[in-house]
């Protein structure tokens, strides 16, 4: 129940509206929201991790009278899967943001390149629909790592995230390393990577958005399949799907255009 005020929960449309009146009313409200038309989202992605993460952020916000700024104590929201999705750092990002947007992963390929035998996974996010006048203040790529029972007890992996600079049909893509860290093989939970600079680059240069690449290596340098390492992909649970989230701040005042 996300109703802000249950006391007034009754129909506010007290008379039957004509079709034209209803369209005009909806157009007026959509113009306030800054939307050119009524969105028609796909139904299948509604229970993915991204909406749940965003709901965590929404629920963490204070809805008291003083809303000249995002101001709220962070209240972790525990999902049925356990640890909260949104973090304290996300709370700090939210304090400075006017808008937060999560992005659906458009593609996912587990690839293996021979003869080097390098496993990796690719991701793509469409940042071309960012409203004008919004600048990225922070962005994260999030992927869930499940607990794996066998083979890798007490071992560690090095997980690396790359920005794809250029693709080639006959060889590996040109990559730029964004982040790299060591994780326990037995680790479970959300892995969060800072992709702020990359996101800014993609917003300003949409044609250069060739996606991200993720790769894992064992301690002895052997390439590890993301699936084997427990990284959840498209075939995994909906509420653990990888996604990207970006925090924005308005750089200009939004004025309604003349109708």
């Amino acid at each position, binding site marked *: 129940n996300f109703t802000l*005020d249950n006391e007034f929960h009754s129909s*506010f449309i007290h*008379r039957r509206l004509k079709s034209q009146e209803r369209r005009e009313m909806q157009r007026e409200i959509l113009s306030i929201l800054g939307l050119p038309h*009524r*969105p028609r989202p796909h139904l299948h992605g*509604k229970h993915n991790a991204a909406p749940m993460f965003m*709901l965590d952020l929404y629920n963490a916000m204070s809805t008291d009278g003083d809303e000249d700024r995002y101001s709220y104590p962070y209240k972790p929201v525990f999902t049925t899967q356990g640890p909260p999705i949104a973090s304290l750092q996300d709370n700090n990002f939210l304090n400075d943001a006017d*808008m*937060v947007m999560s992005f659906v992963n458009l593609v996912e390929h587990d690839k293996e390149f021979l003869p080097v035998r390098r496993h990796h996974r690719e991701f793509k996010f469409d940042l071309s629909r960012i409203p004008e006048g919004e600048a990225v203040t922070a962005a994260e790529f999030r992927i869930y790592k499940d607990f794996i029972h066998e083979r890798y007890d007490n071992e560690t992996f090095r997980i690396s995230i790359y920005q794809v600079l250029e693709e080639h049909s006959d060889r590996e893509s040109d990559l730029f390393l964004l982040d790299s860290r060591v994780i326990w093989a037995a680790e479970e939970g959300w892995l969060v990577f800072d992709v702020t600079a990359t996101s800014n680059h993609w917003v300003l240069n949409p044609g250069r958005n060739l996606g991200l690449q993720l790769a894992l290596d064992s301690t002895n340098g052997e390439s590890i399949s993301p699936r084997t390492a427990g990284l959840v992909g498209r075939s995994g649970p909906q509420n653990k799907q990888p996604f990207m989230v970006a925090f924005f701040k308005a750089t200009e005042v939004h004025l309604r255009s003349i109708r």
Partner: protein
Amino acid sequence: SATGGGKQRNPNRSKGAKKNSSTDQKQACKKHELYVSFRDLGWQDWIIAPEGYAAYYCEGECAFPLNSYMNATNHAIVQTLVHFINPETVPKPCCAPTQLNAISVLYFDDSSNVILKKYRNMVVRACGCH
């Protein structure tokens, strides 16, 4: 002194507002309940939260004497006095929001990306005479 002929000014009452008083007595300028329902617009397939929000509205008289709780500007006080002295020259001040709050809306776009955005000046926090 004020100049200009007086014009009949009819209050422009908004339709569809849920009022909490059915009397004809003129009430002082104050905040009234108004709930805007996204659900009633049939938008629950793309707006995740909220289902609606309490927007409130301002209505009431701004007549002499303006009490301190009416949040009147100095100009409104002066205008009230002029109207009281000569009603046909200037109208009474308007009862309007003096402070507004923002709301946050969580919604899907066409690509099923999720947006959380703050929209300013959506909720009346206080009414006053202007």
